[in-house]
Structures are given as structure tokens and as C-alpha cells.
């Protein structure tokens, strides 16, 4: 670890923190339906969409209608995306002549993008046409992100409202989020990325003759416009196979820095939206503090592990940390930081190959996802995931002092705790369950690229990433098989919707409750005690669930590595 490395990390945290208030304020006014400085341009487009769609923007929805609308939107999106991939060979914008995507791969990819996972069982430049990248994948990068934010806003309204039956209008929330928040930022962001060297063209792949006279075909495409939303919307599905490690998808140290900022920007700002909407910004800062503590701890561990390198490489006299699978322009610190950010949020973009990380360095990304990606988390998804843990923490605190637990003026009762537990428990069921199945199926074991405990970690990582809707991978695992295409798709589906539906039920039941003023017996939820309590609950619940699996994978691998055992 170096001083300049820590300065880069500190600078990163500083910029993210500085963006929380302005972005939070802007997003709050967008979701409250207020006029913004972009309204003169965007309002006619927005009103036009409502008019054709038959949406009455003044009419709010019950939580059940809101959820049904969200689910229907996903079904329609899934079908259209599947169709585009299956038909890409006969559709325009296909200069590389990509053939139709296989049925099981299309199924997996469609679920993957609709659920904001963006798991890549395909290599972008060798599978997808430009049309699929734009009309299919870019679109769902926007829409799944907007849906996540909309759902978080609906849950916030549940906390903020008193004795109301409705929690907002899904169609209005998703439209306003796409038009007022995501699109304008992406336009500016895309131009920045192109300036940094990212291609943005519909031209065919380029044939070059290298200095030594060999032929090199260079894949290009409309990269920047997709990468902007891929990062901002914490989607993470790359234009290229190597994702943000590819020089065209992340050309410079500066583009890397801004990409890391954009992963956290909206998710961190959502805590501020929460604080503002419940009438006390400090509530938002307290949640951000919980996230911050967990995040910095993870960064320190991964950075430390990668900087010390692996026993095998060090024994050969090589110094400078574990550079296998890392790009030189980012080096150890920016690669480690990126890995922790992308898994803390549910982004899943990678600028270095996590499969080649040290055992401990690669374990932190795994833990980040297994905790439910609540450390900032996916845009929207991170906040509602964190609020579920807050409900549990408040409940535990209530048990300890023998009072009915309250949070931001709402009594937390049996129904809320049940919903929170359901959402939290379903995740380990998927990733531990499917991992257990995979490691006893010979055909699934054959997909592992590394032998020994590392192979087990590859499988555990895949199902964790899919369930958490992250999308990063220990890339050695051959995921494009019938078994993994279907099981990973089921993990993504359950991980997304079995979390969303209970969260929406929670929103509905909270909105219907009366707000009660804080009394002398109310646990203050803006101080250090509360922050510590939530962190404790997160680590205890998380730790008990997945520690045994970690012991079989990264922990035993670390011990083997220090004993110089190779597999």
C-alpha cells in the first residue's frame, strides 16, 4: 500500500460525498413532481408519453397496483429483448454479421438485463450486433435502473407518508427518472468518455496491419453511449467481453476515476432523498455512515491483500503486488478500489479480473454481494435493501429494551419484520442452494477453470453475483452452458423480485400507518449508537449465513496459498 494509493481513495470518497447533497436535492424534486431546470425541454416529451400511454399522472397507485405495473413492465421488456437477440441476424446495424443468439443464452441475457444484473454469459464483441447493444441492452440499462430507483422512492414514500393508501405512480416515477435523471447525465457523461478515447461509431470492425506485419481486427462500436448508462445505472454489462478492463471501455486513469464515481453517485444520493422525504436529512446521513464504514473496511482489506501479492509470484522475486489480470494504467489501487465499489453497489462492471485476485482480495467482493449489496448498492435497490436491514436492526433494538420499535415515526410491527426477513432470507437460499447443486453435478463442475478451492469460489461467486443482481464474475467459469444459463437466470429472477415484492408490501403497510411523534422512549436513529447497531445486525445476519461457504472457498485457499500449495 502506498500513500498515493490512499490519496486516490480519499479523493474518491470526497467527490462522492460532495455529490450527495446536490444530486439528492435534484432527485427529490424530480420525484415530488416539481419543475426542474430541464422541464422546458423534457416536460412536453413526458406529457406526450403519458397521453399516448393513457397514464393519468395525478392518479396514484396502491402498493399492489404499483407492483403489478412494475412486473408487467418487466414482462414486456423481457419479451422484446429476447426477440431482438433472437432476430438480430436479420435486423439492421449488424456490420460484424453476428448470428442469432442461442435460445438459452438469450433467455439468460434477457433476464439478466431486465433484473439489472447484466451477467455476461456472452462476449459482447463476438456475440451482439450494434442494434442489440443499443436497442436491447442500452435500453434495459436505463429501464432497470429507473425501475430500481422508482421502487426505492415508493418505499421511502411508505416511511414518509401517514395514513395513506397510495405510494405513488409507477409509470410517472420510471418516466421521470429516465428522462430527468438518467438521460441528461448520460449525455454529458458520454461526451466525456468519447473525449477520453472511447469509440462511438456504427462503422465496422477495423482491420489494422501491425508493425510486425500481422493482421489485427479491432472491435469498435457505439461503446460510449452504452458505457455511460452501464455505470450510472449500476448495470455493469460491458460492451466488450473484458468489460471496463478493455482499453476502449475504460481508456484512461481519469475515465476510470469518473466511472467509479458514477457507480456510487446515484446510490449514495438516494440516502439523501430518503432523509429529505422523511423530513430529516440526518436520517439519510446515518444510513450513508453505515455504508461508509463497511465500504472503507472492505477497501482496506482488498487493497492490502492485492498490494502484498501472492505467495507464488513473490517467491519468483516479483514485486509490486498481484498484477495478474490487472491493467497497467490502473495498477493495484484503482483495480482494488474498483472491485470493492462494483460489488458494494450492484454494478458488476470490472476493470480487472476478479478471478485472478488473491484469495482475500477476491473474498471482499464476494462478501459485499452476500450482504445483499447494501453498501450504497444498486441505484434504488441498495437503499431498499439497506432499509430492510434497518427494520431488522430497529426490531432487535426494540427487543433489547422491551419497547415497540419505531423508525422515522413508524411503528415496526410483526408484518414489517416478516416482510424484511422474507426478502433477506431468500437470497442465501438461492446462492447457497444452487452452489450446493452445482458442486455435485459433474457437468457443472466441468465448467470450473481453476482446480482446488478456487474452483468452488468461482461457482459460489457466480450464484452470489446472479442472486445479488450484480453481474461481476470470476470469469474463468464457463457459464454459457444449459445448466448455468437456466440456474443463474432463476437466481437473478428470485434475487430481484422476491426482494422487490416484500419491499413493496412493506411500503404499502408503512404508508397506511399513522406517523407518531418521537418520545423519550424512541431510539434516536441519527447517531453513532444506531449506526453501530445496524452494522452489527448486517454482519451478524450476513456472517452466520455465509461464513461456512467462505471457509470452504477463499479462506481455505488463502491458507493453501501461504503454505505454497498449488492446484
Amino acid at each position, binding site marked *: 500500500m502506498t500513500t498515493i494509493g490512499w490519496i486516490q481513495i480519499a479523493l474518491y470518497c470526497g467527490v462522492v460525498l460532495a455529490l450527495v447533497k446536490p444530486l439528492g436535492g435534484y432527485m427529490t424534486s424530480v420525484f415530488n413532481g416539481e419543475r426542474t431546470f430541464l422541464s422546458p425541454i423534457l416536460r412536453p416529451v413526458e406529457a406526450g408519453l403519458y397521453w399516448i400511454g393513457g397514464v393519468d399522472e395525478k392518479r396514484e397507485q396502491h402498493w399492489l397496483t404499483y407492483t403489478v405495473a412494475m412486473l408487467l413492465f418487466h414482462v414486456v421488456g423481457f419479451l422484446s429483448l429476447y426477440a431482438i437477440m433472437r432476430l438480430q441476424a436479420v435486423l439492421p446495424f449488424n456490420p460484424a454479421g453476428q448470428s442469432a443468439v442461442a435460445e438459452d443464452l438469450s433467455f439468460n441475457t434477457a433476464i439478466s438485463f431486465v433484473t439489472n444484473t447484466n451477467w455476461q454469459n456472452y462476449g459482447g464483441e463476438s456475440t451482439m450486433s450494434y442494434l442489440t447493444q443499443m436497442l436491447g441492452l442500452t435500453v434495459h440499462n436505463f429501464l432497470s435502473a429507473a425501475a430500481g430507483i422508482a421502487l426505492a422512492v415508493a418505499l421511502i414514500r411508505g416511511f414518509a407518508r401517514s395514513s395513506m393508501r397510495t405510494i405513488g405512480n409507477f409509470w410517472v416515477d420510471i418516466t421521470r427518472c429516465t428522462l430527468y435523471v438518467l438521460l441528461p447525465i448520460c449525455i454529458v457523461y458520454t461526451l466525456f468518455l468519447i473525449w477520453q*478515447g472511447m469509440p462511438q461509431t456504427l462503422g465496422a470492425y477495423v482491420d489494422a496491419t501491425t508493425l510486425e506485419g500481422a493482421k489485427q481486427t479491432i472491435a*469498435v462500436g457505439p461503446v460510449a453511449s452504452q458505457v455511460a448508462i452501464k455505470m450510472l445505472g449500476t448495470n455493469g454489462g460491458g460492451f466488450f467481453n473484458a468489460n471496463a478492463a478493455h482499453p476502449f471501455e475504460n481508456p484512461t486513469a481519469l475515465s*476510470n476515476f469518473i466511472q467509479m464515481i458514477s457507480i456510487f453517485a446515484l446510490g449514495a444520493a438516494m440516502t439523501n432523498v430518503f432523509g429529505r422525504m422523511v423530513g430529516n436529512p440526518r436520517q439519510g446521513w446515518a444510513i450513508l455512515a453505515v455504508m461508509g464504514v463497511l465500504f472503507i473496511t472492505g477497501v482496506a482489506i482488498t487493497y492490502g491483500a492485492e498490494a502484498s501479492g501472492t505467495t507464488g509470484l513473490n517467491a519468483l522475486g516479483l514485486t509490486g503486488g498481484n498484477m495478474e489480470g490487472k491493467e497497467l494504467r490502473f495498477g493495484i489501487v484503482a483495480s482494488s478500489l474498483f472491485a470493492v465499489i462494483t460489488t458494494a453497489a450492484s454494478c458488476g462492471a470490472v476493470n480487472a479480473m476478479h478471478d485472478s485476485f488473491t484469495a482475500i482480495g477476491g473474498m471482499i467482493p464476494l462478501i459485499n454481494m452476500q450482504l445483499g449489496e447494501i453498501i450504497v448498492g444498486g441505484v434504488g435497490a441498495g437503499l431498499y435493501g439497506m432499509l430492510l436491514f434497518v427494520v431488522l436492526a430497529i426490531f432487535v433494538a426494540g427487543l433489547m429494551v422491551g419497547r415497540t420499535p419505531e423508525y422515522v415515526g413508524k411503528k415496526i410491527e410483526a408484518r414489517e419484520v416478516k416482510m424484511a426477513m422474507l426478502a433477506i432470507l431468500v437470497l442465501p437460499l438461492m446462492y447457497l442452494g444452487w452452489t450446493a447443486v452445482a458442486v455435485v453435478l459433474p457437468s457443472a463442475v466441468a465448467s470450473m477453470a481453476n482446480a482446488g478451492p478456487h474452483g468452488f469460489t468461482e461457482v459460489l461467486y457466480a450464484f452470489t453475483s446472479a442472486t445479488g443482481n450484480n453481474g461481476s464474475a470470476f470469469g474463468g467459469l464457463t457459464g454459457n452452458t444449459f445448466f448455468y444459463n437456466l440456474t443463474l437466470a432463476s437466481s437473478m429472477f428470485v434475487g430481484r423480485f422476491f426482494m422487490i415484492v416484500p419491499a413493496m408490501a412493506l411500503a404499502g403497510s408503512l404508508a397506511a400507518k399513522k406517523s407518531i411523534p418521537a418520545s423519550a422512549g424512541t431510539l434516536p436513529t441519527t447517531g453513532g449508537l444506531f449506526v453501530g447497531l445496524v452494522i452489527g445486525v448486517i454482519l451478524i445476519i450476513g456472517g452466520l449465513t455465509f461464513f461456512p461457504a467462505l471457509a470452504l472457498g477463499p479462506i481455505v485457499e488463502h491458507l493453501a496459498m501461504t503454505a505454497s500449495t498449488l492446484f
Partner: protein
Amino acid sequence: MLREIRPAIVLLLGLTAITGLGYPLAMTGIAGAIMPSQAQGSLIERDGKVVGSSLIGQEFKGEEYFHGRPSATLGPDPQDSTKTVPQPYNAINSMGSNLGPTSKALIDRVKEDVEKLKAENPSMPVPIDLVTTSGSGLDPNISPEGALFQVPRVAKARKLPEDRVRQLVTEKIEGRFGGLLGEPRVNVLALNLALDAASPK
């Protein structure tokens, strides 16, 4: 519930038109007008022919060129197209080795490369970037140490004084952005182009 189907379809189509066609095509148009070089992939031409991209590494094997990092990319086997074989710096199939810290295959590969490099230049410790593959397999850069390490070999093959070659390397070292972000590095293709310009083969 049926009442929600119309907005589902209309909003999907409407937002698809905006974010899936309007936005990327407008960006493509603007990029082509104001930043055509970057938009097309930062291509480098010499004598009117495209020799590569300044952002994408390419394979160098000859003694008279600086070499990039090892690359783990694969390409189709010319004998049997259903199989893949190593094809370093294949820019239509980016990937890393994905070998883990306890992989015997990784340590064997690195050990072999380290021994080769030690034989080539015993006077310096082997820089780690010259024996590890990058995440994309297309890394255009090596570290300044990685370039300086190769100076004796290149100078000998080119019949140039070592100091002259070392000077070319020093000129091509790029620092951290703002003195802060990223790592110091040398672009291999740019260095080799400068080398060709300084001493035609």
C-alpha cells in the same frame, strides 16, 4: 391489471425510441462531428495504412521491438474452427487468463517467462508487468521499468547506442493524471513507432 398493459407497452416503446435509438444515434452523430478520431477508435496511420489503435495493445515478438505484456486472448484454431487456441492481442475477443493465486498453470507460465527474461537481462530485477497478463489481454502499456528492462536487447538488435534507446523510452513515459490518478506507463506501440522513426529497420 389490464388497465396497466397499455402504459407498459407504450412506455417501453417510447422510452426505447428515446434511449435506444435517439440517444445513441445522436451521440454517434455528435462524436463523429467533434471528436472523429476518438469516436472511430483512436486509430494510428503510417504511410496511409492503419497500423493499430493507440489504445489497443498489439503483439510484438521481434528482438528489435519493445514487447508488451503477455496476453491471454484466444482465437479460433485455423485447423478446427470449433476449438480455440492462444492468439495474443486478439482485439475481437478480449479476456484475461482468469487463473487464480493458487493455480499451478499460472505459476508455471510466470516462472518460464521470468527465466527467459533473466537470461535476456540479468542486470535488473524482472518487472512484474512483463510476466503477468492484463485483464483485457489488450493492455497497450508497460511500466517504465518494463521498458527500461528491454533497452539492452532492443539496442543490440537495432545496432543503436543504449543511451539513445533509453532516451526514447524516457520521452515516452506518461505520468499519473494530475500527478495523482493511475500509474506511470509507456505506450508500447507509440514507443515502437518512435523507434522505427529513429532507426528504420
